[in-house]
């Protein structure tokens, strides 16, 4: 990488030496390119016709002058100075036949192009600013009438929703015809009486369920009949009138009249 590539790189931090010369930006210039452009302008010729060699010498003289005043220009000015010194040497010395480095003329042309480009951008900036600008020479509508945004609700309610709502209310307020279901319940005395009358006629074991089935046509009454019948049979056992037997868990409950009792 030649020095030509380096001169615009971000300069390394230069360590401040105590008591040494002041390092400052060159007053009034925005960087080395700006300084070069200004020096070029002082040649009072068109930039296209400028002598790059002369420009390099002026720059180097300017920097030297600064240093004599014990002012050390900022690093990028010095990098440019080094590059220009190199350029000058390339321009003055004849190029060696097998020289890999670019010719002095090519370096000078490149610098020239950079200066022209910067100057072109400066002129463009100025002519841009000289245009009739909005708010300065051209005005927009002073009293714009902003567009009002009206939020219009869109109700997503369907006829079905409406009808459901109506039906729900009509049902809610309709007086309910509440009729508690009456159930036949066998009382214990009834059950006892019926068991007694059944057992009176036989001395065999009979199944409680089988006996109930004989009496009951309505299956809805079977639960109450079984509960009351079983409770009544226990009562009869306690009084010594009846024997109860069950062969296995959940098996049929069998009952028989006690011998010597009853009729």
């Amino acid at each position: 990488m030649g020095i030509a590539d380096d001169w615009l790189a971000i300069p390394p931090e230069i360590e401040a030496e105590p008591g040494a010369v002041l390092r400052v930006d060159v007053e009034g210039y925005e960087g080395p390119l700006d300084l070069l452009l200004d020096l070029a302008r002082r040649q009072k010729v068109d930039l296209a016709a400028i002598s790059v060699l002369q420009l390099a010498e002026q720059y180097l003289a300017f920097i030297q002058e600064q240093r004599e005043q014990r002012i050390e220009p900022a690093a990028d000015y010095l990098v440019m100075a080094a590059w220009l010194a190199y350029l000058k040497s390339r321009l003055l010395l004849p190029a060696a036949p097998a020289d890999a480095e670019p010719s002095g003329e090519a370096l000078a042309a490149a610098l020239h192009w950079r200066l022209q480009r910067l100057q072109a951008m400066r002129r463009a900036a100025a002519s841009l600013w000289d245009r009739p600008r909005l708010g300065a020479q051209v005005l927009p509508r002073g009293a714009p009438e902003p567009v009002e945004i009206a939020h219009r609700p869109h109700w997503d309610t369907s006829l079905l929703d409406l009808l459901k709502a109506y039906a729900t209310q009509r049902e809610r307020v309709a007086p309910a015809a509440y009729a508690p279901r009456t159930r036949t319940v066998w009382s214990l005395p009834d059950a006892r009486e019926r068991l007694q009358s059944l057992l009176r006629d036989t001395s065999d074991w009979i199944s409680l369920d089988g006996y109930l089935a004989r009496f009951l046509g309505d299956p809805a009454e079977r639960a109450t009949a079984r509960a009351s019948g079983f409770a009544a049979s226990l009562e009869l056992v306690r009084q010594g009138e009846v024997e109860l037997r069950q062969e296995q868990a959940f098996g049929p409950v069998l009952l028989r009249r006690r011998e010597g009792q009853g009729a």
Partner: protein
Amino acid sequence: MSDEHPLAPDPALRILEALLFAAAEPLTREQLSAHLPANADVEHLLDRLARHYSTSGVNLVRRGDGWAFRTAPDLAFLLRTEQQEPRTLSRAALETLAIIAYHQPATRAEIESIRGVAVGKGTMDILLETGWVRLRGRRRVPGRPVTYGTTSAFLDHFGLQSLGDLPGLEDLKGAGLLTTRPPASLPLRFEPPLGDDDDPPENPDQEDQG
């Protein structure tokens, strides 16, 4: 007909045009004439400019002491855009709407007696905002309570040709929406619950207020 601007030759009119266009507030004749030659007849120029813009999309109008460009009144709609926002009616609003639809004209007290709860003011406001419910008039009973009914926008929205298209109770039952038959003691649709001392609903033409 040419599209060329007929004002071109008159620099004074161009100046007025630019000044009035750029001004944030109406400009008075004095403010305008400060920019014109001393002998300019500002009043006359303003009249010409106003006439020139009279059929345009913007008009030059007088505002107090001043003059200003304003959008032509018939184009004011351009400056409003509508944004639809989907919204859902609350259950209370929907039920109230249903009662009004079936029992109109209905007073608030009647609605409340059917719903069994008070109707909030907000609920009625929302229904009026939907454009589906309107004030129909006043019942001729003590206190002259306001009656509510539905609008043609209501019919439009729900796809009904007329109120007679609202399904009857039997239809609702047939559709499985009603499981029990409401007792006859509740009023049927279109029959306001009139007390003994109520007048029948007035002629809607007399009654309408909107």
